[in-house]
């Protein structure tokens, strides 16, 4: 038996140290990444913005998380007038809570006992970054993008979400200038909960519409 036949052969002297994780620079720099870096350098060189502006913007975008969306949903659950304002025009409603929805209009789609909403961008990977932070890898995958628009109930079932017959499934294809956030149903068993506790059960996946909040 050679040293590599056994499943737990870590003691073998032939087993060298683990290879290092490759550095980013070990892969060739592609055409578009090279162009993006060149343009960023030129804009800094020409004084359009500073390197610190660029860093701060990336930092601000990276610091956004689905908790912002969760905060809006929790307020909408406890305040019906706020919910109406949020659905009518999310930007001023979110501003009431000090939340900036960003440059793209965000449409809030309310789940009901008759309707389940789910969001996709079939053309690329448009996503409400300002309210949800960076999108998950599956959202950008061709698998999700091509299948959820064609067979949404099966894709939702893969996420563990079974939508009853009689409840419409509505897929929102984020093809142009709008972005979408789902306003899920408030689960039973949450009477009397604080907004903070309610916000915690509103996960990123609930806000995209691939699952529903659970207690």
């Amino acid at each position, binding site marked *: 038996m050679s040293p590599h036949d056994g499943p737990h052969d870590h003691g073998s002297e032939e087993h060298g140290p683990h290879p290092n994780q490759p550095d980013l620079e070990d892969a060739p720099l592609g055409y578009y990444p090279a162009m993006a870096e060149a343009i960023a350098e030129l804009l800094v060189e020409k004084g359009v913005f500073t390197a610190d502006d660029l860093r701060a913007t990336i930092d601000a975008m990276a610091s956004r998380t689905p908790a912002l969306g969760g905060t809006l949903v929790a307020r909408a659950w406890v305040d019906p007038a706020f919910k109406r304002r949020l659905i009518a025009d999310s930007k001023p409603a979110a501003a009431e809570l000090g939340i900036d929805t960003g440059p793209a*209009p965000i449409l809030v789609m309310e789940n009901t006992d008759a309707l389940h909403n789910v969001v996709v961008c*079939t*053309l690329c990977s448009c996503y409400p970054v300002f309210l949800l932070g960076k999108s998950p890898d599956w959202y950008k995958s061709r698998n999700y993008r091509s299948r959820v*628009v*064609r*067979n*949404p*109930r099966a894709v939702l079932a893969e996420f563990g979400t079974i939508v009853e*017959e*009689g409840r*419409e*499934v*509505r*897929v*929102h*294809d*984020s*093809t*142009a*200038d*709008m972005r979408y956030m789902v306003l899920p149903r408030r689960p039973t068993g949450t009477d009397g909960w604080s907004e903070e506790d309610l916000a915690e059960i509103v996960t990123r996946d609930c806000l995209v519409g691939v699952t529903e909040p659970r207690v």
Partner: protein
Amino acid sequence: MSAPAYPPGARVRVVERFPPGHIRTPHYCRGRVGRVERLCGRFPNPEKLAYGRGTDDVRALYRVRFRQRELWPDYAGPAEDTVEIEIYEHWLEDAS
């Protein structure tokens, strides 16, 4: 600027053409009939914006609701299931 051509509820057909370039109208809805859900506003035509040809050409943008079975005739789910897609006015024609 002309008034938006289609009110909410209007039956519209997505133009069935396949020009090259940066087009924000998915192939799967071209030639299909749906109803206008709302006017989203007016936005620069992405077919020019994508090539640095300016933001002056502003187009009305609609959300159009389609029955799944209109888009995918073999759709296996319930007849009431729908897809809503943002489509610019120059990609729509009257289907009333």
